């Protein structure tokens, strides 16, 4: 401490408290940087692993500087045959099971399922949220709780009945089958979240529209919806992310024709050789990247979204 403590003048006191405050700010910032670094490390490490040359993935202490290789991505995204790469790397054909790392079809499946289900969620959920927010309903809270309770349903509990129903209908391994369940599991989020946005639009606006001769429906889609557009965007993006990340239902209701990224990532057996991690890292990174880009767009509403509208944030 080099600050003088002897001078009692006002300017000095202010300097000193400012210095102390800055010092504490820097100290806290330092601690936060350290904490955030820990939370980012696994993602960073996984990302690096997807560019690490064969063998370097397993070096300890871990290496962070290396000539990047695109071998793993050439198979995962470029469609170079697995056996050709493995032959170059190991000089031998190790296994025959790795032929499915080419994941562009899985990415397409993921995109189709997530975007169509998101579109449906928004189309069906918005009027429902508006109704829940506006119309006088007896037992409104019970209705909201019931909507929330569908989110509490253990996915396993829903998976088997849906599997058996789909088996009868022949919907296993079809787009509409997966899209339907993804729509239903994201609907509670959309309704409750959008309700919280509708609740913030003054009721006067509805009344003004009604006085001007609009019907309820017109008041809703010509006037009120425009005030919740940011909320609508946030809802859509979150719903897309949850659908993109959904695992168990897709695992149960698909076989080979349709495979979303998380399911694809989980089905590779890595127990036999240590070599598969490069492919997996490239696959996993490709599965995370779109979500990361999307989520940064909705940061502002994220807290509200993750609590289904309960905490405004």
């Amino acid at each position, binding site marked *: 401490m080099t600050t003088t403590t002897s001078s009692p003048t006002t300017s000095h006191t202010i300097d000193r408290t400012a210095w102390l405050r800055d010092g504490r700010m820097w100290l806290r910032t330092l601690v936060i940087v350290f904490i955030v670094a820990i939370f980012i490390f696994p993602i960073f490490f996984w990302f690096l692993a997807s560019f690490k040359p064969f063998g370097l993935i397993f070096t300890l202490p871990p290496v962070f500087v290396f000539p990047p290789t695109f071998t793993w991505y050439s198979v995962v995204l470029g469609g170079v045959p697995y056996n050709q790469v493995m032959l170059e790397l190991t000089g031998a054909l190790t296994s025959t099971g790795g032929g499915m790392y080419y994941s562009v079809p899985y990415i397409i499946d993921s995109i189709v399922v997530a975007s169509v289900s998101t579109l449906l969620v928004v189309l069906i959920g918005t009027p429902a949220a508006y109704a829940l927010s506006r119309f006088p309903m007896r037992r409104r809270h019970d209705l909201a709780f019931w909507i929330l309770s569908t989110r*509490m349903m253990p*996915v396993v*509990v*829903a998976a088997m009945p849906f599997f058996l129903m789909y088996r009868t209908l022949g919907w296993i391994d079809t787009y509409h089958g997966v899209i339907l369940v993804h729509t239903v599991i994201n609907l509670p989020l959309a309704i409750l979240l959008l309700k919280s946005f509708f609740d913030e639009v003054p009721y006067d606006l509805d009344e003004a529209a009604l006085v001007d001769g609009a019907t309820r429906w017109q008041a809703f889609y010509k006037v009120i919806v425009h005030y919740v557009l940011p909320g609508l965007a946030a809802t859509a993006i979150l719903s897309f992310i949850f659908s993109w*990340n959904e695992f168990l239902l897709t695992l149960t209701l698909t076989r080979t024709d349709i495979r979303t990224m998380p399911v694809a990532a989980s089905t590779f057996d890595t127990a036999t050789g240590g070599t598969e991690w490069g492919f997996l890292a490239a696959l996993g990174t490709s599965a995370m990247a779109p979500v990361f880009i999307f989520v940064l767009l909705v940061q502002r509403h994220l807290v509200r979204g993750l609590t289904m509208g309960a905490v405004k944030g």
Partner: protein
Amino acid sequence: MAPAVLLLLIYSVYPLVYNIWTSFHKFDPMIRDFVWVGGENWATLFSDGRALNAVRVTVLYGMLALSIELTLGLGIAMLLDAGVYARGLWQSLLILPMVTPPAVVGLMFRLLEHSEFGVISWLLYGAGVLTKQEPLLGGTGQYALFGVLLADIWQWTPFCILILLAGLKSLPIEPLEAAEVDGANGWQKFWRVKLPLLRNVLAIVILFRIIDLYRVFDYIYVMTSGGPGQRTETISYYAYQTYVFINWGYTATLGVAILIVIWLSAFIYTRLFHVEW
């Protein structure tokens, strides 16, 4: 409203009714159909050691995860709230773990916790916490649950941080100022003023964490498959196993039992803490 209610009814009522019906049946692979067995599945449930184990694992996992995530979350949220430079940047970065697909998180931690070349294992060996004979994943599986917990804590502590931070930022300042005038120290301000004011937000964080914790599945599936033995077999994973082995009548029984317990507890919880939408 109507299409939404209809879809949600399908999602909530159909599995419930179907599971209740199925829980009194047994699937016979020979005739490829269900046959009536009365209360047999339910009798099994109450004498099923594996189900009891799964409940124990789930409760232990849930309590540890919840308490660690809440404590860390509250601590870090308060640190961020106290004032740091570039707070927005740290908040954005903290979002990333929780939007990573859980199945991929499981894979990431499997690599990090690999008993031979995982970075976390290597650090733990170096610190003398663990030995290669008894690693996080593998060995007798003594620590496997902690291995899975690590992934959960990594992914969901940021959730607690961000929600609690939002709560802290929206606290009214008058009570805090009043406490300061009354000469309260930092510790008293936290326990006596901030925490009680945070009650509602805390109740919501806990509710959402519990909802997700009791049905944890993805990490288990990817990281340990419930093993070694049944040391990491949670109730969701056990139910899935009975489903995979076409013991569908019993899957339904487990499902109905889980549903009853969780709906009742959530109902009581939301009434008790006045959680409202």
